[in-house]
């Protein structure tokens, strides 16, 4: 009974703390971006104001199914993050993560708007871009660590990245896509809102858009946690290195976001697949040889 209670409390804590952290990260991200562009920028709590405002707005949906798909996408995102923080199997998390992305794309398809269709199609292209890399990462993790278990990383002698350096570079590509940052923000971007740029969300308003935002906060935390998985090891120093490296990498993501232009979806596909094939397989071959 006690085990059950503590597990329930842990799940509750993850579900409450993760979106708050995600929103804060998004707020700090917007502030740093603004500073890089020589602007003052919005308050750090701005993402929360945005979501609360969206919840207060009327929301008419073109097709009620859109909302179901979005809620399902959010639920699978939560499920994924809870599993990840409870130290479950990496493969299971990746499957939950992919399903949530597919539901998000279906939400785009459900509204019968050409812009939304383009967004949904591009969302699918993005999934094709990063899923092979993530699956290779999981296999690499298994080969390097000897288990798919996420909690296992806390008992290692050296961080997993030391055995998976090339796959880790591939992971950096994946998180750029997942954080929806330039040059890979092809399906839905934070910048300059225009129909094609806002893609999937073109026909969504009010609470639907709020769900999209909150879902994205979960995704942000998931991607950072995924990064952390490859940096942590069994010593207290591992935490310092892990958190420090995550902060630096996130800062570099913001820098790249502000310094590059959006590329065409074909180039995105090519760029990521070349990285997957060369770096991913080279790293796996290296691991199986030594």
């Amino acid at each position, binding site marked *: 009974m006690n085990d059950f209670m503590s597990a329930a409390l842990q799940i509750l804590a993850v579900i409450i703390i993760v979106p708050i952290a995600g929103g804060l990260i998004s707020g700090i991200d917007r502030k740093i971006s603004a500073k890089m562009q020589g602007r003052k*920028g919005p*308050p750090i709590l701005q993402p929360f*104001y*945005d979501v609360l405002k969206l919840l*207060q707005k*009327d929301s008419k949906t073109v097709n009620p199914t859109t909302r179901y798909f979005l809620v399902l996408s959010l639920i699978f995102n939560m499920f994924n993050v809870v599993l990840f923080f409870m130290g479950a199997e990496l493969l299971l998390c990746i499957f939950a993560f992919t399903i949530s992305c597919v539901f998000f794309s279906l939400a785009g398809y459900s509204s019968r708007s050409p812009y939304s269709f383009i967004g949904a199609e591009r969302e699918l292209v993005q999934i094709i871009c990063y899923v092979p890399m993530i699956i290779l990462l999981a296999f690499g993790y298994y080969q390097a660590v000897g288990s798919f278990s996420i909690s296992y990383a806390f008992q290692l002698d050296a961080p997993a990245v030391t055995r998976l350096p090339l796959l880790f570079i591939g992971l950096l590509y994946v998180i750029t896509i997942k954080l929806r940052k330039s040059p890979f923000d092809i399906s839905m971007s934070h910048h300059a*809102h*225009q129909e094609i740029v806002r893609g999937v969300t073109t026909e*969504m308003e009010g609470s639907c858009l709020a769900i999209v935002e909150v879902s994205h906060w979960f995704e942000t935390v998931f991607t950072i946690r995924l990064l952390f998985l490859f940096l942590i090891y069994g010593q207290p120093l591992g935490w310092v290195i892990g958190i420090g490296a995550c902060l630096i990498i996130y800062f570099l993501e913001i820098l790249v976001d502000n310094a590059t232009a959006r590329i065409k979806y074909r180039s995105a596909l090519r760029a990521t697949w070349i990285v997957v094939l060369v770096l991913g397989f080279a790293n796996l071959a290296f691991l199986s040889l030594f």
Partner: protein
Amino acid sequence: MKFIKKSPWILHYNASSCNGCDIEILACLTPLYDVERLGMIHTGNPKHADVLLISGCVNTQSVSVVKQLYEQMSEPKVVIAVGACASTGGISKDCYNVIGGVSEAIPVDMYVPGCAARPEAIIDGVVKVLDKIK
């Protein structure tokens, strides 16, 4: 508490402006004025927007678009007429195809004067109109 005051998302439509007012609206986004510090975002989508900024007078061609954009926005929403043309018809009031100011087509909540309206005045207009929302 109405959070729309903290994050008014803006949709800008050029009904038949000479581009003078448009450029001033876009100037609000530049580092000098930086409206994002007030939580404002320039959206390109009526479904995401809370504030409709219209520059230029309404003519026989643009009237249907203005009405449609207004109808596509969800409540609560406000409309601001930016510049002399949008307020009254301005310099082109007597043209054969001009219907008049934006208020001829849809209800307007705030008029920003000027030809062209200054960025400070536009930002002030948005901030003031939000106080009207109950």
